[in-house]
């Protein structure tokens, strides 16, 4: 398989070189979180051992270094997603916080009659905050339905045509479904939303570390993601917002660092990005995230994407051949990400994950924070194997062997 990345990359990830219950760790839970290369861990250590200080309001050497590091991280992330301006990068805790900030700020300008459009495949984090925004504003929430079954699932784009009326003020959708692996054509969806004047919000949690992303080419208004799923630290994420829009939004949180002037009567806000970063920011992890951007860009997301897809295709093909396993997701060959979701006729996903763990294999089983979709598909859970740059073909073989054994156990 020529699409694969060099096996030597694996050496960059200290955590991978361990046994779990006597078996070498096979980490296939990348959709939940990714592992961290040495370079990212080192960036954190370096920051704490050399530069740590509070940012922005300091004039001494450490504070200037910390501020420079933090702002350089902002610029680095802007480049990672091709934002026009570093001021469009707001550091958050992660995707969930990013969606909440946008949903809360946009809710302030929604009214009864307005429609928030999203899809049936959203992660709870890009769904519940919009339900709350609808509740708070009186707007209506609508969902673009999924179409097809099992291994032929897709989004109903004809329904989208009907749903995308001028009443739609916000269209929020996932770039890459964490449950199905379905990849949406973000640029096309944004163009259609723009035509009716809707603000677009993209949940790029699953895609940003795996696929090339250019927010200007996509033409979205907002895009959110988490650092921990793209080789970065936990506790840091990004809300990208188009500058012109950002400065019209009310801040979701207030406090030190985001104010121009405060009296006992009231306060005024700085422009973005500070307006949306109240309090001491997560400086170390922002710098760690920038190191993750460096790491991923040195390999190149086109190469990472090809690698993930090659592994997913191999797993997809091999698992589809096992009797008693149904693949849940888009047809092979359709636009999709590097993960495979599947269901057993005779075993529940939790039992599958417990069995796989005994073989050293880390999988995820459950509703994947996607309860309504599960209900709609008539299943309670799936087992998911999700791939990243350090996975290899032997790990797919181990996965398939383990699944085969489980089938036999529960059939027996």
């Amino acid at each position, binding site marked *: 398989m020529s699409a694969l990345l060099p096996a030597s990359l694996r050496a960059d990830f200290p955590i991978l070189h361990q046994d779990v219950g006597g078996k070498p760790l096979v980490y296939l839970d990348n959709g939940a979180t990714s592992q961290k290369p040495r370079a990212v861990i080192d960036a954190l250590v370096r920051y704490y051992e050399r530069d740590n200080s509070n940012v922005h309001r300091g004039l001494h050497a450490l504070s200037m270094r910390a501020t420079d590091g933090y702002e350089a991280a902002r610029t680095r992330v802007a480049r990672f997603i091709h934002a026009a301006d570093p001021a469009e990068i707001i550091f958050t805790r992660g995707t969930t916080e990013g969606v909440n900030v946008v949903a809360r700020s946009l809710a302030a300008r929604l009214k009864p009659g307005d429609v928030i459009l999203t899809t049936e495949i959203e992660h709870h984090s890009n769904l519940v905050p919009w339900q709350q925004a609808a509740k708070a504003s009186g707007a209506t929430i609508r969902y673009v339905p999924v179409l097809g079954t099992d291994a032929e699932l897709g989004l109903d784009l004809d329904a989208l045509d009907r749903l995308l009326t001028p009443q739609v003020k916000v269209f929020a959708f996932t770039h890459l479904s964490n449950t199905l692996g379905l990849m949406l054509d973000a640029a096309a969806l944004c163009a259609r939303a723009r035509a009716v004047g809707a603000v677009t919000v993209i949940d790029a949690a699953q895609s940003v570390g795996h696929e090339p992303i250019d927010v200007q080419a996509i033409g979205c208004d907002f895009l959110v993601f988490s650092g921990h799923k793209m080789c970065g630290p936990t506790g840091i994420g990004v809300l990208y917002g188009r500058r012109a829009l950002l400065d019209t939004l009310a801040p979701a949180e207030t406090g030190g660092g985001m104010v121009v002037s405060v009296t006992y009567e009231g306060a005024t806000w700085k422009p973005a990005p500070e307006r949306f970063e109240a309090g001491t920011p997560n400086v170390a992890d922002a710098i760690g995230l920038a190191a993750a951007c460096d790491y991923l860009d040195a390999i190149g997301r086109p190469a990472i994407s090809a690698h993930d897809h090659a592994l997913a295709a191999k797993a997809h093909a091999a698992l589809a051949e096992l009797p008693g396993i149904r693949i849940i997701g888009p047809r092979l060959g359709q636009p999709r990400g590097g993960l495979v979701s599947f269901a057993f006729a005779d075993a*529940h996903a*939790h*039992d599958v994950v*417990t069995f796989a763990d005994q073989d050293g294999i880390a999988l995820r089983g*459950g509703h994947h924070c996607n309860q309504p979709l*599960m209900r709609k598909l008539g299943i309670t859970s799936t087992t998911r194997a999700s791939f990243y740059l350090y996975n290899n073909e032997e790990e797919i073989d181990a996965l398939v062997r383990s699944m085969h054994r489980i089938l036999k*156990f529960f059939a027996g």
Partner: protein
Amino acid sequence: MSDLTDLYQSVILDHNKRPRNRGRPPTANRVATGDNPSCGDNCTVYLHLDPAGRVDAIGFDGSGCAISQASTSLMTTQVKGKTASEAEALFNEFKQIVTSGHPPEEMSDLAAFAGVHAFPARIKCATLGWHAALEAFKQPASA
């Protein structure tokens, strides 16, 4: 996979494949539901008590892993004929087994769940149906 055959004992596999007392008994007039939100597992237990407060009909619905399904199925067989306080005593014994891994001195089908103790993340699965049942005892009888 020695640990796993400890966990998935034949009693468990059997109850998972052929659950006992599945469904709502016609006479049931108390009901409670348990959720394991992290897993998405859920379980509804239906009861009817005789005048002495003993379970004379019990059933369950819901979906979940083999551990939770088997444990709930087994629970229904054990709780039948018991009062609320007897059921609670039984649950305490069960909890003891799944957290310590030590089966009780007297032989009991509950001992099949001793293997769960090695899988702390699964203890919630094993106790889901029990929690629902104890909750159902506390519900007022519907007409």
